[in-house]
């Protein structure tokens, strides 16, 4: 199919899609015409209909291990450890766990509806300030770019940078957060928070601290001079501008 710009493209060809016939699985090569069955969701409710699937799954694994005349794929199973996968092995490329049809989506399983219903999984996570991880530029590249002077050629001298990674002038500002007693540090994007309450809520969730236990933790931060301070002692703006990293400590008494 030659792609000619300017000509109307032919409609997409009917792609022969392998159908999954529950009754005669094992026929990998079958290329039947599309079934006209409606989408069958019962597979998701693990009920009596599941029996067929279980049988067929076992049939699948036993048939490939017992077949003798096959190619390299069969021999692999006789070894003690399964060696690394061979992409050319003859496996069914489309094991259907449900029937595929070309019918338009029913209203209740339209993915875009489901997407809208759950705003917490909506695309814009940064409250409209920008997408997480987009454009796909590595973090340290983002930081470097914002050292760039606006003037261009005249502005040759750039300010010396504090550390090799550069300042945090980019829109997504990630800082390290550690919790006392937890070896693994996390990172949090400061640009999506505008208050201590919002920040604390996120941190509680991140480290799995329940509401009841909230009071036993205090948020501290390390400023540019290296001193550790209590977060709530300073106004939000000061906090944001001077902090380098955060730490949750257990408050005593």
């Amino acid at each position: 199919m030659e792609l000619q710009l300017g000509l109307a493209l032919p409609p997409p060809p009917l792609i022969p899609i392998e159908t999954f016939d529950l009754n005669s699985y094992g026929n990998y090569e079958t290329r039947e015409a599309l079934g006209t069955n409606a989408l069958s969701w019962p597979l998701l409710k693990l009920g009596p209909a599941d029996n067929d699937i279980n049988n067929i799954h076992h049939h699948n694994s036993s048939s490939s291990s017992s077949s003798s005349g096959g190619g390299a794929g069969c021999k692999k199973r006789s070894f003690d450890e399964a060696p690394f996968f061979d992409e050319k092995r003859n496996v069914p490329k489309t094991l259907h766990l449900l029937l595929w049809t070309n019918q338009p989506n029913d209203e209740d399983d339209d993915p875009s509806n489901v997407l809208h219903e759950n705003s917490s999984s909506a695309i814009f996570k940064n409250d409209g300030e920008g997408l997480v991880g987009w454009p796909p530029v590595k973090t340290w590249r983002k930081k470097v770019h914002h050292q760039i002077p606006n003037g261009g050629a005249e502005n040759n001298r750039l300010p010396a940078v504090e550390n090799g990674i550069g300042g945090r002038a980019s829109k997504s500002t990630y800082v390290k957060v550690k919790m006392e007693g937890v070896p693994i540090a996390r990172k949090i994007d400061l640009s999506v928070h505008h208050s201590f309450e919002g920040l604390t809520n996120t941190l509680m969730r991140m480290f799995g601290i329940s509401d009841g236990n909230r009071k036993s933790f205090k948020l501290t931060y390390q400023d540019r001079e290296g001193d550790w301070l209590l977060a709530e002692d300073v106004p939000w703006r000061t906090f944001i501008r001077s902090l380098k990293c955060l730490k949750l400590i257990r408050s005593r008494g």
Partner: protein
Amino acid sequence: MHKKMAFSFPDEVLEHVFSFIQSDKDRNAVSMVCKSWYEIERWCRRKVFVGNCYAVSPRMVIRRFPEFRSIELKGKPHFADFNLVPDGWGGYVFPWIAEMAGAYPWLEEIRLKRMVVTDESLELIAKSFKNFKVLVLSSCEGFSTDGLAAIAASCKNLKELDLRDCEVDDLSAHWLSHFPETYTSLVSLNISCLGSDEASFSALERLVRRCTNLKTLRLNRAVPLDKIANILRHAPQLVEFGTGTYTADVRPDVYSDLAGVLSSCKELKSLSGFWDVIPDYLPAIYPVCSKLTSLNLSYATIQSPDLIKLVSHCPNLQRLLVLDYIEDSGLEVLASSCKDLQELRVFPSDPFGAEPNVSLTEQGLVAVSLGCPKLQSVLYFCRRMSNEALVTIARSRPNFTRFRLCIIEPKTADYLTLEPLDVGFGAIVQYCKDLRRLSLSGLLTDRVFEYIGTYAKKLEMLSVAFAGDSDLGLHHVLSGCESLRKLEIRDCPFGDKALLANAAKLETMRSLWISSCAVSFAACKLLGQKMPRLNVEVIDERGPPDSRPENCPVDKLYIYRSIAGPRFDMPPFVWTMDEDSGLRLS
């Protein structure tokens, strides 16, 4: 089988023949010819590559390959580079080091990508492997300069220490002094990711002076320009060099020092670094430009005229990384000067700006595609594209193996016709028959996926964002792309159907990442239950997925094939769907 093979070679002969086979794919093929070849091959495999550290356990690898000398491991999914994988997800190398330290002390090379490496791991490496030679950490994190000090102090035969793109806790620059005065075997050192203002220049200088085999040296930003001459003076044999900060008060003595010392580096083929460049110092590198094959200017914040001057001095350039300051005009000059160009990466100088700040458009990419006959790999950030340009690019450059285009604003249509860019990308996959890697962007419908499924038969890695209309798109890719190994998707209207209808395909791939799409928790559970050889990981920082209705989409889903079973080092926001998940969660 053995008895029937009257003409079989003795094992030693076969082993000798196998020693010429280096590629993992070929070695894997060899190992499947027959049982005796499997046995011979496994005993003489010296380099092991594990593309996903959770696909297999360290013990399994060691059991199968008892005498390997070199291992390469990859951890986190690629989208971790863009902060899409929450911290703490996994990818810890320590269990591997611990198993290997116990198994045999003759390991020589460790190469890691996107893994969490602790100081403890580094100390264990330093202690356990007496003949340790190569440590390459690419995009790794979790360690500090203390760990590096341990490596420096103990690894007497270290040849290569490469920390490209790592996040290192910079406690002290004095780790460099831990290389003993008797240590001279360094061949390659890349510390470009390190910070630390108080760089230990004298220790660095002494190290460079006594390591006369040093071929690669990539400094970090903290090394000032006037110190470079002192360092380079002792290393005229360098082949690859990365400067530190390339700015200083313009002083004639600094300039002439630098120019003089650079021109004595007759073997120099690759330059990088160039942080904070001021154009006045650029001509210092002109004498070496004619031999350069690789140039990384992606931190060089200089404008088009200076870039053009520089690039026109480099007729033998094969690889160029540059910021979009080069503009279309610069790329046109590149196209006419650098006929050997194979790889081009153009990064955005202002990725978050709403308006274009430079005159870089699709024209630059068209110019390079038309002018550079050997161009095969491209990563290009721009703000507009047209189907016409893409078709021209595809027709003129069918030898592309990697084509990654990022149009900065999601869902941007063809700026000339306002249509989707389906036809343009379709042309890319149709004409570039050897295309192995593709990244899509712009306004795209299901149609582009139909083209990809139909034509991209050699495609191994596909990155998709903000594209498609329905599950049909994903279905085209999963059912059509025969060579697909890695698929990463974000923010597309793909749901359960395509995924479930192509479940077996997932076992033939290394991994699938799908985030901010419409795959329901119910589908994840079903996949996990029915596909025991897949690890189906639901990553969701909102809380347990079963605290929401089953048909709710999960935030992030990472599916990968594994013979090691589900892992046990998951943080609280990751759940593996398996046979028991239905019982465990409710």
